[in-house]
């Protein structure tokens, strides 16, 4: 028979002021199994806790009910208290007679009656509680960072500097992501290459970092501390161990394909390095454009030319599996494909209507025009330039209501660069609002206007060609009239969107995305770099549009979270997880289907049945993965799988107690 102790808290006047705590304690005293009932002014205080300890010792209590505030407030306080008493911390139930009783019922009599009911339910439930002990999960101190833009690079470096092994994956053939494409960065106008290439080479040289380019995640199994990850590394057709990166093959390759890195402003060869400062600084062969690999022609000139014989057309994709303790998702962003969304801006018909990134490649020294701003159509220097902001952002009709955060600043940067590099240029910026939320951002925006950028408040309704000029027709809402600005070149600051295959990757990591595909953080304010799946963290634009300063800050935060995880050899899992009674389980896999975390699997066991020893299937719970939601317990018809802490017996007793 249980020996229960009931402690009713006054909570100063919060509870005692609204209901008769003495009567509740007295009523509790008469409940079956209750050996001791008392009330006290502040149960969570030192003296209150001491009262509990003394009562346990004196009355040999084996389970405790605290009638006080919400369990969400002090459940842990009282669990910690029980740790240094003979009573198991989980032989405890809290009756919420403050937030859900004293504070919300004016009638003192009804409040008291309800409090008695709530205490009776808690006592009935605690009678069926069982001592629970935490399970411990080993931690592999090795991290996997997916995506090697500035976010992934920074996170990998921080984790590696903390002394842990890191594998850094990058889908493309070189790391650097979008940042390395930029010319200058706001607000300091640092040259983007100068501040990112050193980090890229540091990554390549770091002893703790294994860099794997052309690699994507094939599958993820296991759980926090023990993720079994299969990685697919695409065939490079160039043996990077032998190749010295001399570039001879690139000069001889006959194939001409649009360069993705240079935003299709120029072409590249089939064996190529995306840009001069690529890391690893060795070329790869693109199977879709190499004539020999497509099988169109014999070619193979690069193989013939290569002094070291590094070219190998028989190269195959490699599948590497490894175990990681933590995973950081840093897959970054892509620019929205604006052409189909904006037929009114010519829908991609006019080559002189370019995106911000294409402009960055034009103005970048290592770009197709060696930094000279020449418009793509006739390579002439554009005198009149129009910059259109919020193309695809902040526009429900075009499918994205969010603001892409960084374009206000880099459009001011573009205006400044054009005015500086092209004497006599006239720059008009069409804007709705200019948002400058960072340090020195507002001052940067002022400088752009002082340089002569003309900011017109209104959206561009139509861009059309007339007399050799691109007419940007919009509205100046401040003057309240339509306006038409002829331009030689138009830069569209297009919206950021998540990487193409992000939903697929999130499905593998069992983390969710929002409606647009941005990865869902555990809590927007309190846990921005964590996800619902323990051990999987986020950094950078994959979580939502952001600029480089925020991205680097998040990368550091994610690295810190990984280091916290790796600081212990094992993690304490919550004991309130599901458990299976193998005697009752008939292996119907109803629970396996409903588990959101794939924490329950069918396993074959040896079992003595009437017809002798047989093998049969039963459900098994993986303590690391189970988050304790209880969907399996409710789906199990025979009650074989049950959620410890909220077992069927406990809840049934709680329901019965309500109506006595």
């Amino acid at each position, binding site marked *: 028979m249980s020996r229960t102790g009931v402690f009713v808290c006054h909570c100063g006047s919060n509870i005692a002021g609204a209901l008769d705590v003495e009567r509740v304690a007295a009523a509790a005293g*008469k*409940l*079956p199994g209750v050996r001791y009932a008392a009330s006290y002014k502040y149960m969570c205080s030192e003296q209150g806790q001491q009262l509990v300890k003394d009562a346990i010792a004196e009355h040999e209590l084996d389970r405790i009910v605290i009638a006080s505030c919400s369990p969400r407030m002090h459940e842990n306080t009282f669990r910690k208290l029980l740790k240094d008493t003979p009573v198991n911390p989980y032989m405890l139930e809290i009756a919420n007679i403050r937030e859900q009783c004293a504070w919300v019922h004016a009638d003192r009599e009804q409040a008291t009656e309800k409090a008695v009911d709530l205490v*009776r339910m808690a006592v*009935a439930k605690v009678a069926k509680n069982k001592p629970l002990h935490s399970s411990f999960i080993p931690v592999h101190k090795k991290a996997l960072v997916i995506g090697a833009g500035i976010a992934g690079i920074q996170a990998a470096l921080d984790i590696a500097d903390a002394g842990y092994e890191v594998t850094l994956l990058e889908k493309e053939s070189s790391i650097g992501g979008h940042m390395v494409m930029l010319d200058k960065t706001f607000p300091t106008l640092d040259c983007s290459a100068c501040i990112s290439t050193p980090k890229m080479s540091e990554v390549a040289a770091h002893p703790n970092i294994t860099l794997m380019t052309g690699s994507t995640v094939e599958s993820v199994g296991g759980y926090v501390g023990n993720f079994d990850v299969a990685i697919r590394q695409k065939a490079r057709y160039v043996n990077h161990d032998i190749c010295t990166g001399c570039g001879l093959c690139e000069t001889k390759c006959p194939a001409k394909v649009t360069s993705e890195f240079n935003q299709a402003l120029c072409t590249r060869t089939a064996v190529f390095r995306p840009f001069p400062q690529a890391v690893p600084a060795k070329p790869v062969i693109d199977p879709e454009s190499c004539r020999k690999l497509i099988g169109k022609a014999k070619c193979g000139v690069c193989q013939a030319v290569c002094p070291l014989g590094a070219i190998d057309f028989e190269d195959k994709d490699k599948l590497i599996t490894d175990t990681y303790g933590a995973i950081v998702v840093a897959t970054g962003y892509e620019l929205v494909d604006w052409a189909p969304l904006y037929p009114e801006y010519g829908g991609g018909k006019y080559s002189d209507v370019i995106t911000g990134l294409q402009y960055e490649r034009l103005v970048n020294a290592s770009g197709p025009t060696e930094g000279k701003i020449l418009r793509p159509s006739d390579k002439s220097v554009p005198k009149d330039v129009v910059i259109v902001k919020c193309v695809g952002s902040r526009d429900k009709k075009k499918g994205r209501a969010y603001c892409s955060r960084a374009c206000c600043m880099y459009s001011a940067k573009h205006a400044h660069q054009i005015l500086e590099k092209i004497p006599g240029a006239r720059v008009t910026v069409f804007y709705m609002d200019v948002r400058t939320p960072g340090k020195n951002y507002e001052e940067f925006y002022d400088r752009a206007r002082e340089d002569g950028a003309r900011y017109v408040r209104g959206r561009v309704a139509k861009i059309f060609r007339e007399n050799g000029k691109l007419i940007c027709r919009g509205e100046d809402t401040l003057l309240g009239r339509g306006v038409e600005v002829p331009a030689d070149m138009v830069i569209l600051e297009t919206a950021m969107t998540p990487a193409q295959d992000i939903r697929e990757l999130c499905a593998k990591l069992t983390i969710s995305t929002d409606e647009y595909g941005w990865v869902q953080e555990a809590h927007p304010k309190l846990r921005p770099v964590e996800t619902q799946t323990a051990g999987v963290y986020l950094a950078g634009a994959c979580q939502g549009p952001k600029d480089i300063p925020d991205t680097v800050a998040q990368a550091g935060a994610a690295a810190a979270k990984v280091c916290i995880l790796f600081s212990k050899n094992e993690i304490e899992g919550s004991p309130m997880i599901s458990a299976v009674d193998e*005697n009752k389980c008939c292996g119907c896999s109803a629970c396996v289907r409903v588990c959101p975390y794939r924490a329950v699997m069918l396993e074959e066991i040896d079992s003595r049945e*009437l017809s002798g020893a047989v093998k049969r299937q039963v459900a098994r719970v993986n303590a690391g993965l189970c988050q304790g939601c209880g969907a399996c317990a409710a789906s199990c018809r025979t009650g074989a799988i049950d959620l410890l802490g909220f077992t069927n017996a406990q809840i049934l007793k709680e329901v*019965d*107690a309500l109506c*006595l």
Partner: protein
Amino acid sequence: MRLNKKDLNKILSILAEGRELFVPGQVRGIKQFKLWEGEAPELDGENTILPPKDILFPKTEKMYTYKTGTEAEIAEIVDMPERIIFGLRACDMRSIECMDSVFIREGFEDSFYARRRAKSLIVAIACSGAGVNCFCESMGLDPNAAPSADIFLSDGGDCYGVEANTERGAAELKKWAEYLTEGDVPKSETHCSLAPAMSRELSKKLTGIFDDDELWQEVTGPCIQCGTCSFVCPTCYCFDINQADAGGEGVAFRCWDSCMFSDYNQNAGGHNTRPTKKQRLRNRYLHKLAYFNERHGMELCVGCGRCISKCPAHLDIAEFIDKTAEVCHD
């Protein structure tokens, strides 16, 4: 004595004065013994689907209420109204003899059953129509007589022959004096269509085939281990005791149980003495036809055929008897 059938209703109202009168009748489409509400009882046709067992040995019977806490109180439930079972046939009468032997005569006297039995007057009637599954004659019964009933009515066409077999019966007949006339009524000649080769020797020999696995596997194959046969059988008397607990106070009750259920033989610690259906059905047949005989001197099967008509797997105890009769002879 003779009783004109037209006066039956008056007799029933005499019987029902201050007492609960149970007569065969339809309750929601199921013929069973029900409280008489003035309608004409369904005395002819096939026997009731549910036996009168429920009256003396109810499905669920409150034994006592209790209150825990500092001073525990246990209040036994004693209220028991006078009852009359009217329209009983020979087979059901024999089943009451069996129950009496179990609950009263042999070994420990069950106070609950005994109290109910003492307050029950039984008016049996000659069997007016043997069902297709009836075989009471093979079990040594005469469908047209019920020697142990308080009052027995034999069927004389437009009137009943009335005779009292016990003093209670005789005392009761005094109240009917006004409607009784002299003269007796010839015994009716109802016979069973089914006659399995049951006999006392077979009952003795049955325990001999306990280990004949092949036979039992074949006989018990179709059984689905439900409780239908137990709960329609007039003589199954197994019960389970449990509490309906309502937080420290509640009721202890006794309710029907069936040896066919898987958890019937579940011992503490999980061991089950009769885990397979072969063992359980064997136990049931042998208990009905052999074990009971050893202790109480009569078979526990009265041949009413209710289990045969209601068995989902169409198992048939009569066929079993014939089959084992062959096996036992050679």
